[in-house]
């Protein structure tokens, strides 16, 4: 019996041997630092032991692999603030507050979109729950280390975040059966948040009371039943866990900030935030970040006032703004999505690039590690064929921690490998069919069926095509 080679992961484009961390010297490229140094022409970048160790002219290093960057551009790896790739499922829809559930418990490291997004220069993705719930669950920041297992995908040492959602999806406006779950209005969503944090606040008080009591000599010990749902909310109030809040219209954004003010925390990030431009001043006063789409609108009522000038207006008011994908396909063109603010908002190219590098790094609290080209930071880098904001730019190499996880030349070889393996399996099937009894009823031979590719999204994406075999997670549930 001939078996196929084991690859990591065990699907197409899996590695026969995991790529290794290397010392790399990129020579003579245009380097977009996303730092105050700006764009540096004819500059070298040295990577050693997974970190950026030098930026300058005429650098040398005997241990480094040399990559000629002449005529090419180098940027920090792209960071997607809002993604649903590499997750087995994303909506725990039983109730509207599910702060206890964690993406980290169901990462899917075999999602081909990890590899496809590396080909678009993405190096870190913030994997979120969907938007079925007011409080969806604990998120997971990952690095796109294609071939690694679920644990090794995780971005080490990053702050914990949690997904909140407001508006139509939480109200389940599009549910074909109608909604029977509280909340059904934005008024109700507000009260779900008030109730959740009131419970968390009382819970925290009982813990404190128990601790105080138990310190006293001779007191009857008090215990409080641990509540995983409320634990996560207490973390938010103690600034140990941070919110990214799916939101669209100005009323709900305003209301969510009022709840946060009352309970003494900040909504770290409003994500999607297509009407952010209407309340940018209030968001700035609150201290929130904004992560938005470039040009989506008019696919549901809460986005009829969405405008492609949103990112640039929010930036001008002084908010830290990112462009996110929420989409398995668009994520590999985030550089171009950022570039749309040059067209619609007159943003500079360097500022536009920051919306997918250092700005999301800041809002995810990992800007000390990633998001710009700076000595000491993780070597998460992209080598582009052209100006990275141009429609014509292709990522030629995508590097995570000094390891080249995407290489356009290697990719060409992997395509052949993939085709060869496919042909081998087809032959094997055909041979089984030809075997006596092989094609007969009741025998083991079955017609091949393509596997569907489940695309998780916030439920806003029924209107964005993905691929012939891609189905939206919600659609898949309905079909079941």
């Amino acid at each position, binding site marked *: 019996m001939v078996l196929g080679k084991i690859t990591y992961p065990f699907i197409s484009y899996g590695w026969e041997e995991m790529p290794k961390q290397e010392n790399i010297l990129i020579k003579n490229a245009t380097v977009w630092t996303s730092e105050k140094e700006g764009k540096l022409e004819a500059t070298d970048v040295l990577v050693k032991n997974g970190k950026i160790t030098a930026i300058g002219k005429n650098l040398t290093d005997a241990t480094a692999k040399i990559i000629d960057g002449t005529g090419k551009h180098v940027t920090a790896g792209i960071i997607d603030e809002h993604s649903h790739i590499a997750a087995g499922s994303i909506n725990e829809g039983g109730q509207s507050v599910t702060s206890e559930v964690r993406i980290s418990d169901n990462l899917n490291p075999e999602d081909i979109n990890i590899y496809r997004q590396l080909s678009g220069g993405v190096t870190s993705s913030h994997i979120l729950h969907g938007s079925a719930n007011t409080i969806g669950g604990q998120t997971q920041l990952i690095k796109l280390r294609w071939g690694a297992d679920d644990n090794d995908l995780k971005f080490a040492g990053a702050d914990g975040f949690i997904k909140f959602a407001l508006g139509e999806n939480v109200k389940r406006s599009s549910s074909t059966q109608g909604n029977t779950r509280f909340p059904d209005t934005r008024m109700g969503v507000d009260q779900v948040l008030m109730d959740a944090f009131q419970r968390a606040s009382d819970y925290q008080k009982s813990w404190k009371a128990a601790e105080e009591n138990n310190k006293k000599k001779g007191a009857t010990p008090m215990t409080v039943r641990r509540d995983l749902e409320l634990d996560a909310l207490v973390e938010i109030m103690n600034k140990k866990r941070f919110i990214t809040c799916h939101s669209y219209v100005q009323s709900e954004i305003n209301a969510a900030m009022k709840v946060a003010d009352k309970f003494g925390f900040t909504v770290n990030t409003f994500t999607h935030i297509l009407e952010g431009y209407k309340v940018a001043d209030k968001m700035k006063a609150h201290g929130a970040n904004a992560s938005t789409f470039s040009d989506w609108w008019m696919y549901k009522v809460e986005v009829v006032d969405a405008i492609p000038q949103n990112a640039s207006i929010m930036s001008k008011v002084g908010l830290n703004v990112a462009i996110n994908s929420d989409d398995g396909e668009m994520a590999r063109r985030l550089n171009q999505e950022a570039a749309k603010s040059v067209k619609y908002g007159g943003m500079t190219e360097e500022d536009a690039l920051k919306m997918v590098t250092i700005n999301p790094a800041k809002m995810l609290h990992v800007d000390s590690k990633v998001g710009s080209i700076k000595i000491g930071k993780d070597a998460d880098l992209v080598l582009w064929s052209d100006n990275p904001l141009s429609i*014509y730019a292709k990522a030629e190499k995508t590097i995570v921690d000094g390891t080249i996880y995407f290489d356009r030349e290697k990719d060409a070889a992997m395509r052949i490998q993939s085709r060869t393996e496919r042909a081998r399996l087809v032959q094997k099937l055909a041979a089984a069919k030809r075997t006596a009894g092989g094609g007969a009823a009741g025998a083991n031979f079955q017609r091949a069926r393509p596997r569907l590719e489940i695309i998780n999204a916030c439920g806003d994406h029924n209107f964005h095509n993905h691929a012939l075999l891609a189905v939206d997670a919600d659609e898949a549930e309905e079909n079941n």
Partner: protein
Amino acid sequence: MKKIFFYIVSLLAVTNISGQETIYPAAAQKETIALTNATIHVGNGQVINNGTVVLTNGKITEVGSGVSTSGAKIIDCAGKHIYPGLILASTQLGLVEIPSVRSTADGSEIGEMNASIRSIVAYNTDSKIINTLRTNGILLANVIPDGGIISGSSSVVQLDAWNWEDAAYRTDVAIHFRMPSLLNRNRGRGGFGGGQQPAVDPVKRGLEQIENVKIFFREAKSYLAEGKHENTNLKFEAVRNLFDKKQKLFIHCNIVKEMLLAVDFAKEFDFDVVLVGAVDSWQIADILKQNNIAVILDQLHNLPTMVDDDIDQPFKTPAVLQKAGVMFTLNDNDESARYRNLAFNAGTAVAYGLTKEEALSAITLNTANILGIADRTGSIEKGKDANIVVSEGDILDMRTNIITHAFIQGRQVDLNNKQKQLAERYQHKYGIK
């Protein structure tokens, strides 16, 4: 008095005090206009440097370098680029305003065989989306009905009109046949679970439905061959022009099996067949060429079909078709960005193998050819309608796709839109520019 009134109206238009409701369709062209000193991308592959286009009475009357501009109002386009108005080949613009709100959706009729349905009668010229397309260079669109198996006929509209009659550029250009899917796919989740086998074999059922469509056309043919009818059959009457080749059959399908069956329709009925979608057309480009089948690639910015397909397959499919000599056009049917990224889909095709001028043809002249309007538009050539856009720079790249002027039939189009107005409203609030 009249003059003062006109002055106030223009002031309103300039300062955007009112909403989209005061973005008026332009009146017929009176004054001859010359766009000078520009790089002219003709649409047929040619580029004219430092050229001039003259527009008179709605037509292009001169194109080239050193042409006479006497008597014309001069618009200096130095440093700018001039393109034919871009054309959406297949869209539900004006039929579906907000896809998730049923009452705003007039795109999809009930019933399987609706040959007599006409999209043009429901096209809403006041859709808020239309003006956002003009700002990105799109001036014409083929508005298609959806639903059922035979969905009805589509019409080409121009995007600066008071009502659908004004908008109609060429009506009933194509009948739309949505081929039932022959994809042998499982139901339910495919990710972790693997899914279940479907209750009815989709291939078997699909083939039966396709056979029914053939029967429909055979009966229509017999019916149309008769001189007189006691009872008029509206559905058969609706496909008369298909048999005369005054109309094309647009077959919406994607996988190879489906496309091969589509070729059969061209052969059996001698129809002009255009494939819409045609995701896997790169696999049979030679067959499509041999059978003279044109292709509308629905949306380039998409994922590959199979996990083991080349990761950039959708991006490079246009180059495969171009090389094989297939007549094709690129389309944007993204219901999230609402069709505005047509030029950037074409730009991506350039990154993956087309030349810039080939990509431009794929959203202008090729589209006009496929829609049967190439005698009137699709390129900047003498005698054609003056459907023209002027851009600060390369129209295919979002950094430089900044449309400064647009003309539809010589009428200078107002480039304001609802989104610009909202931006201005809040820039006003914050005191920023």
